[in-house]
């Protein structure tokens, strides 16, 4: 509980800039972002389209390298890692949920959820068994063997959450997790994400436009024109 009382930063961005292109055609998308994301919290990143939310998320996830500044994730300076080490770092420590789910269409729900374990070299039967247990917790017991094309949007997002959490990562990154869902389903999957991902050893970053889910965030960082404009915080618990 101490970690909640005195939050520790899981992700710390200091003076982060990101520039795309070179010379006259270059575009500065992040203009010196400072942001701390804490263990045991859900941090929402909100803002207008083009404000740099997605780029910030990509930098924090190690999918893009910052042009300047420091990106510390789980105590590790990402710039100090080689590209392959970054991939292995992501595999071990990060979980992803995407706007379009990006499930593999040929794999069943259970197999999709098991992909991070398979990538880590876990035995297929073991991986699928663990995936099925997690899908049970997400209320997908009856849909283990369904292909993504046979799942509703909400079900697909639940499988995507299972995939993001199956390897028990310390940082979960979700990009617009409710934008492809109707209002009611969006609320439901957010409740699930909040309850299942809440852990003192885990931080969650969610990029969203959807103001209906703002209540799920401990902190809401509002971006504008490539910088964090302001941060608001309030205390929530899984039960709330």
């Amino acid at each position, binding site marked *: 509980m101490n970690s909640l009382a005195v939050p520790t930063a899981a992700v710390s961005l200091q003076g982060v800039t990101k520039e795309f292109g070179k010379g006259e055609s270059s575009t500065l998308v992040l203009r010196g972002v400072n942001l701390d994301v804490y263990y045991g919290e859900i941090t929402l990143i909100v803002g207008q389209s083009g404000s740099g939310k*997605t780029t910030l998320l990509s930098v924090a996830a190690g*999918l893009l390298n910052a042009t300047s500044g420091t990106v510390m994730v789980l105590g590790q300076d990402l710039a100090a890692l080689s590209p392959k080490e970054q991939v*292995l770092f992501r595999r071990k420590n990060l979980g992803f949920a995407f706007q379009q789910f990006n499930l593999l*269409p*040929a794999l069943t729900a259970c197999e999709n959820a098991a992909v991070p374990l398979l990538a880590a070299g876990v035995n297929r039967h073991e991986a699928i068994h663990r995936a099925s247990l997690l899908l049970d917790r997400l209320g997908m017991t009856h849909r283990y063997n369904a292909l993504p094309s046979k799942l509703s949007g909400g079900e697909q997002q639940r499988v995507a959450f299972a*995939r993001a959490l199956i390897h028990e990562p310390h940082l979960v990154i979700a990009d617009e997790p409710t934008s492809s869902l109707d209002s009611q389903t969006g609320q439901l999957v957010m409740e699930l994400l909040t309850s299942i991902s809440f852990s003192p050893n885990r931080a969650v970053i969610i990029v969203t436009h959807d103001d209906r889910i703002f209540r799920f965030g401990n902190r809401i960082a509002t971006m504008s024109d490539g910088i964090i404009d302001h941060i608001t915080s309030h205390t929530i618990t899984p039960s709330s």
Partner: protein
Amino acid sequence: MNFVAFKMLVGDRPKYLGLIFAIGFASFLISQQCSIFCSLMLRTTSQIRDIVDASIWVMDPATLYFDEARPLPDNKLYRVRQVPGVAWAVPLFKGTATMRTDKGNFRAITLFGLDDTSLVGAPPHMLLGRLEDLSLPDAVIIDRDGYKLLYPGEPYKIGREIEMNERRGIIVGICKISRAFNANLVGFTRYSNALDFVGQQRNNMSFVLAQPDPGLSPEVVAQRIKAKTGLMALDWNAFGWKTIWYYMKHTGIPINFGTTIIVGIIVGMVVAGQTFYIFTIENLKQFGALKAIGVTNGTLLRMILLQASIVAFIGYSIGVSMCSFFIMRTTHLPATRGFTIPWQVFVFTAIIIFSIVLLASLASLRKVLVLEPAIVFRG
């Protein structure tokens, strides 16, 4: 991740089947055309390979291939016999005549005149009659395909009269020989008879067949014959290859078959390449998701190569199976008798097919390897 790669491949059934079809088709085209080409080329040497008694062929130095032998004077036979290391040497006549039956049918025949005493060069398999009956007056043995052409629909029967060069002949045997390159009938008779059937010239001996003394290799003795007589002497294998190279260089056969084989390769590569590329482009976000999740480029490379190998293996298997079926169904027909698939064709086709699929997957592979995983966050 092999399991994921396999399911990604077979999960998209239309593309998977399209790939298999393209590779299978290319594989069939390549293996079938190569087999027919090799079989045809082997046919040019079939009459050389059928003569198993003698291992050295002696001929005029200007001879380019088997079917074009300039007759040698008879004294060359004695000169060959005098070469140290030659165990024995016999003459072989090869000429062309027109054979006519008592029913009026006629066909061109390639007639071999065998040494009267030894009958060296006789057909290896008799279906009806005895080889020794060639010693009978006017005796001729003909091959089974020739018999069927002369007497369509009739059962094998010996003792029938034929006529060549206005001379009477008697069919004393029916033999089985390897299919020759040309469509002529093939007949065997004694050397002295052959000169009468075809018509004597100043020189008549087409080849001298010789055998080295025990313990000496045909190549060594052939060199000695060449040195001592000035004639060309080759072991049967070298003479066979000389004949094959002649047909390769002086006929359009390699170009014809080569073109078809190249078409097979292009079709296979274009269709497989395009399908692989589309498959990858359509799954780019999924590949991006895998990269974001922590799948390394090395693993993705192995996944795509595994998919390529599966497609290549199945397509190759289907293609060569179809080719084998084709050859099995046609190898007994007169026109395609003896057609076979040399083992080298299986290896060659496998190399080509796996190269096609590898090249086809390279374009898409590059796309995946340079893929920025951040693509997954773009709507």
